[in-house]
């Protein structure tokens, strides 16, 4: 031992002073108790990795596609067309005093962000299986990086909605300045749902199969293609417990000037926060043993 420690001493001296100070002891011990450890400093230190993982997702998504980012327009446009025909022409759904296509696009833009983000996040841990079992990194980065690429699509959608507004002669009101806040709310909600799904999917691959189906139902349980004022009585609780309802209503109000979000929408936002908080707790609990069972 004496020989190796002497060798070690000389090696340390030759290191630059900064490198020596940087070293700190890290521990790997069994976690105890019910509340998880959330190392915010570590997350902050890995912010570049989040961006790089997010960029990787973007690049992979558009590799070997002809349309590339064009898909961010085609996908919602098709949905807008279908909803306009079915909901407006056939079912005569009201649209809060603005042209229906503008109304539905305003909601769809943020819904599609949510649906894509949640789907990508659900797969994020399973997709990084090799990484999870071979390298240490804060696992929370996987779902976090998954909800970012779709922001590009959301941005494009917002521009497209702007074009629609110009065509149909709808001017944005003062509420437009609140749009960034609604985008933050959308990201937080999507991340919250995504954290839950990614952790569940790491454990039970059923999530993958259930999700497509779940999102279809979820879309109709959310006031995207219809105004929330249409929901009455007992059904109204759907708006309260649905964390996406508030985001969609608020986002649409802010962007195209539909009805402002009411009490139900605000409760729904709070539900979103609860989902996020419980998701983080659940995630941190399974994160400890993730590499053992994923």
């Amino acid at each position, binding site marked *: *031992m004496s*020989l*190796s*420690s002497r*060798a*070690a*001493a000389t*090696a*340390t001296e*030759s*290191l630059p002073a900064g490198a020596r100070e*940087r*070293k*700190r*002891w*890290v*521990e*790997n*011990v*069994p*976690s105890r108790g019910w509340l998880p450890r959330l190392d915010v400093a570590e997350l902050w230190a890995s912010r*570049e*990795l989040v961006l*790089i*993982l997010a960029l*990787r997702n973007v*690049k*992979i998504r558009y*590799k*070997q596609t002809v349309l590339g980012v064009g898909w961010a327009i085609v996908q919602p446009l098709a949905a807008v067309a279908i909803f306009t025909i079915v909901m407006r022409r056939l079912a005569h759904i009201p649209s809060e005093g603005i042209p229906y296509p503008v109304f539905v696009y305003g909601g769809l833009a943020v819904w599609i962000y949510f649906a894509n983000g949640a789907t990508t996040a659900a797969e994020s841990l399973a997709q*990084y299986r*090799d*990484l*999870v*079992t*071979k*390298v*240490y*990194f804060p696992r929370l980065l996987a779902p976090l990086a998954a909800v970012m690429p779709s922001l590009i699509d959301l941005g494009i959608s917002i521009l497209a909605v702007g074009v629609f507004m110009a065509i149909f002669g709808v001017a944005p009101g003062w509420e437009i300045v609140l749009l960034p806040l609604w985008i933050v709310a959308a990201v937080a909600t999507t991340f919250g749902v995504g954290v839950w799904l990614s952790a569940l999917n*790491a*454990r*039970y*691959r*059923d999530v993958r199969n259930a999700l497509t189906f779940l999102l279809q139902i979820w879309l109709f349980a959310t006031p995207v293609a219809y105004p929330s004022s249409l929901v009455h009585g007992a059904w109204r609780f759907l708006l309260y417990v649905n964390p996406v309802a508030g985001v969609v209503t608020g986002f649409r109000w802010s962007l195209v000037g539909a009805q402002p979000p009411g009490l139900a929408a605000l409760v729904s936002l709070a539900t979103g926060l609860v989902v996020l908080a419980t998701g983080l707790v659940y995630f941190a609990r399974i994160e*400890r*043993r993730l*590499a*053992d*069972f*994923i």
Partner: protein
Amino acid sequence: MRSVEVHDVTKRYRIGDRWGGTVRDALSLRRSRDPRWFWALNGVSFAAEEGEVVGILGRNGAGKTTVLKILARITEPTAGAARMRGRVGSLLEVGTGFHPELSGRDNVFLNGAILGMKRSQIRERFDDIVEFAGVERFIDTPVKRYSSGMYLRLAFAVAAHVEPDIVAVDEVLAVGDAEFQRRCLGKMSEFAREGRTVFFVSHDLGAIAQMCERAIWLDAGRVRHDGPAARSIELYVAERSREVPQVEFPRDEAKEVQLLSVGLTDEDGAQVDAPIRDRPFAIRVRFLVRRDVGGVDVGVSLMTRNGTRVLEESWSDRSQGVAPAEGTGVFDVSMLVPPVLAANDYAVGVSIASPYQRFVDEEVLTFQLWPRPDDRRELSDRSRLVQPEVGWRLESRAPVEPVEGQPPSQ
């Protein structure tokens, strides 16, 4: 200075009904209430200093990789504590996190970030990494078009430039060519000279002897010996050579044809425990045929640990297609291997088939072909497949004649 302290670490896994799976498993009432546990590590303690290269040896399942995973914080211990001073870089598998669709350049940044480098650091070292890997011309090509050698070199180049304080390396030598292995070892020695602590898991005792002053022998999740590498290797080898390379299979009435046992013998049919490379040995396959299936043929293959198939023979290859086993019964068949193979670890694969059906086709046994006592154990052992008795002879020796117009060199 102390850089790693592992204190009484235990890691337990559940066997059989694993965590994970489907919701149905989780809801199932038939889940066993008395899970069987597997103790991957059972009260392991050790410490290491800066600049130390510590080898970890032991047979498969002894807990070597689990130790590295705990050091790298990939998984947490069931009990006990591991403390590491500084950043731990793990090289459990070269190329983890590479994405086939992305270019070499993108993958360098991605992989570097995953391994803990900042963008600015990667940019700084980018040219070094690419040069080390020797893939300058292909750096903007998607790595799915790389040859496996290029892929491996680039991946290792990134990992080698991360500069963690503690490095955990698992079996990197199991892949790649001799040149690549030399670079890996060179880089690890360099790490140690720079005052980093290196943990090095390998099956290759020669590489451990060469790289490490100290080695920890793990056996069934416990530290059997921790001390000078030469001593740990000696103790480990002494124990391994007492093991009997023989497997038996339980009888299964449902099978028409089944394996009963596979083992090693010498040329006279006596069981051998530690075959040595300069003596012939035989692989004996005992199998049972319950129903006449029209004659069965037996095949045996040998594969080195890194997946190279060195031998594949079947009975019918040598006897004009006549099957050895007609009718029913218990058959004992052995294949004699002449003394040409290099000392190495081998996996034995056995196949049993009738003209119409394949009954058995699996890897059944691993054994070690031991070097001769006077063999020099060197790293290059792993890259040779055969080691027959070649002859060396000095044919002649002539004095050096000076070239005209040049002064004779010293």
